[in-house]
């Protein structure tokens, strides 16, 4: 298919960050073609270019070529070096868009990651701050990345932004631990944060009340805190949102989040997120749908050993298939899905053999 056999070739703008990250981890060059080639605005968007710049600053020796029209990118990865960086995110995407891929790379870096991201801190489609802090970092912890933190220095709601978060990843590990999780999550407690910037704190309490009302019948400890930001540190725009996290005793969790727009009623958002959390719990196997890519990638780059993760039938969606296909194109390894045989839930066990990736900057004993 490809004219240049030295690249792994992809087409389309989908999974852009994932492909770049997988390329970086595997050390293979990728070529992504036909990026929005049929679009009215063809080529890379500003946030994707910004992401490539970020990749350039946390790696050493990366080469990025972008064609004139921006519809083709060739990326030759260097090694991950990390360090202290400040990244100004464009207004079109919140910081979560940039922090999320960094989580895949940070533990395998030469130096510790300490990146300050400036920009919006919330949106409808990307990971919020609390979701990263309470939903994604716990997943990393399961793979042996214990010392990582995301500090919120300033919040900035869309559209004006003005927020600032600081990602610190202090544990540098040679490779992720092989992980087995064969149990469905059993929720022990539900936590949450409702935040607001530059609006009345009553919005926060109204969201909390609505969410608590929905979650009351589950008969579980519900603890939602209010986080009201005022003055200098609350960014340039008014905004509010809620994140709910349902956690097990062992620290696995699933979550749901949303933010309010102008004209939304806080009660509606609180109710909606609470119901979405219930839905997500019902769909989730060992991890939620949002955490699945992170978990699978960490399992793939693990030791040459079989890791196991329980997933439900509902979790096999288009994203999941795209993820596995992209992983196969780059790492060449497939995962094996085995039905669970000791109960009748119809769940599957994803058995993943690690590719034996090692952090290039670490000596293996």
């Amino acid at each position, binding site marked *: 298919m490809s004219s240049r056999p030295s690249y792994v070739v992809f087409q389309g703008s*989908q999974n852009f960050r994932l492909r770049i990250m997988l390329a970086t981890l595997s050390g293979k060059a990728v070529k992504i073609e036909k990026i929005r080639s*049929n679009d009215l605005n063809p080529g890379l968007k500003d946030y994707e270019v910004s992401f490539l710049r970020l990749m350039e600053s946390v790696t050493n020796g990366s080469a990025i070529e972008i064609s004139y029209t921006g519809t083709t990118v060739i990326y030759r990865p260097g090694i991950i070096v990390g360090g202290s960086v400040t990244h100004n995110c464009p207004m079109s995407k919140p910081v979560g868009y940039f922090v*999320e891929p960094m989580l895949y790379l940070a533990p395998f870096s030469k130096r510790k990651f300490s990146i300050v991201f400036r920009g919006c801190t919330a949106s409808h489609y990307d990971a919020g701050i609390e979701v990263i802090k309470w939903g994604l970092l716990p997943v990393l912890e399961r793979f042996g990345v214990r010392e990582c933190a995301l500090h919120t220095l300033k919040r900035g709601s869309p559209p004006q932004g003005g927020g600032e978060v600081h990602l610190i990843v202090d544990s540098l590990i040679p490779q992720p631990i092989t992980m087995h999780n064969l149990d469905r999550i059993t929720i022990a407690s539900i936590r949450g944060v409702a935040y607001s910037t530059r609006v009345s704190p009553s919005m926060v309490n109204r969201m909390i009340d609505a969410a608590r009302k929905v979650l009351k019948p*589950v008969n*579980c400890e519900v603890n939602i805190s209010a986080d009201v930001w005022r003055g200098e540190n609350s960014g340039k725009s008014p905004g509010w949102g809620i994140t709910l996290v349902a956690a097990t005793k062992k620290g696995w969790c699933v979550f749901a989040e949303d933010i309010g727009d102008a004209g939304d009623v806080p009660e509606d958002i609180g109710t909606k997120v609470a119901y979405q959390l219930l839905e997500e719990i019902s769909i989730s196997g060992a991890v*939620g749908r949002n955490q699945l890519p992170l978990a699978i990638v960490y399992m793939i780059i693990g030791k040459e050993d079989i890791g196991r993760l329980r997933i439900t039938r509902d979790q096999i969606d288009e994203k999941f298939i*795209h993820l596995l296909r992209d992983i196969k194109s780059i790492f060449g390894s497939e995962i094996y899905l085995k039905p669970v045989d000791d109960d009748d839930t119809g769940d599957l066990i994803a058995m993943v053999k690690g590719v034996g990736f090692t952090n290039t900057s670490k000596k293996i004993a």
Partner: protein
Amino acid sequence: LKGSQNRRRKWDIGKLIYMDNIPPRECLKRWRNEDVGDEEEEGSDIEQDEGEGFFKKNDGSFSKAHDYEGDLERFSPYFDKIEKLMEKWSSLDSLKDRFIGVPKPEDSK
């Protein structure tokens, strides 16, 4: 798709995922037996061996218009409309075994 007449009844999702010529949405449909539009449901070919030769090459799958549901660039997952969710979770019985501290209907663990 009308082209794939010789469909098996039961698909192995593990194999379907890696059949690159089938777009993911189609994979899911086949796996869940959703597109029962045409009349190949006799049940005679359940145990037939799979073979990629059945399917027409569908190489346009990646260049198609933006498919947000399948795009990992979008972090938040798909949820049904709030009205549907409210209806679905008006009773929490099916979720009972996912919480600690709620008495289970029977000892299933």
